[in-house]
């Protein structure tokens, strides 16, 4: 899976939880889920659970804590996919 494909899937996953649509339109790798997209921490858990289902991977506490930006999330997903 290319990074472009990963990003498309991640955008679909986070879309229902995004509050700041302007920043979502201009999403890039540095976009922060909480500070830019205004996703709350409870919905961040839903993002992680949806990522687990979509990519059939398991996210542990350490990985979860890193997944605060688009870039960090893509890295976590890539690392977990590589281990499969």
């Amino acid at each position, binding site marked *: 899976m290319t990074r472009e494909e990963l990003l498309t899937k991640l955008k679909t996953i986070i879309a229902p939880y995004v509050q700041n649509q302007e920043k979502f339109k201009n999403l890039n790798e540095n976009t922060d889920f909480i500070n830019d997209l205004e996703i709350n*921490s*409870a*919905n961040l*858990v839903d993002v992680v659970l949806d990522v687990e289902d979509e990519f059939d991977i398991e996210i542990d*506490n350490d990985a979860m804590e890193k997944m605060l930006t688009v870039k960090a999330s893509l890295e976590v997903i890539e690392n977990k996919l590589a281990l499969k």
Partner: protein
Amino acid sequence: MIRQDIIEELPYSKPFLFVDEIVEVDDDHIKGSYTFKKDEYFYEGHFRDHPVTPGVILTECMAQIGMACFGIHLLKDKWDRETIGVAMSSNEINFYKPVFPGEKVSVVSQKVYFRFSKLKCNVAMYNAQNTLVAKGIIAGVAFKK
């Protein structure tokens, strides 16, 4: 099984404690009850000359039993009332029957998931006739204060 120990750990007190007893609890579900006293403070204004338990209070009762008590059980050793806070993060509840002053209700909460300190449950409330009063989904989080 009456789990008074869980109720004592709750961060609520009168007039905003809506749990009398926990009668069942395991890692998948919890069941508890509360009897709305005839002189609860909110009956004075809800409604004028016609006391009915507000839906937000029924939701709160469902959350205190189905989320807070359940969460304390699930967190086990990690729970500490001094350092851990709880918050409701979302709810979607449908209401089917009114609850009047003096009525006893039972709440049953089934775990959907408990991950990364977030608990999401299917929660239902029944009256003393075992008729469905309210039902829906509630989620909440535990966090370091």
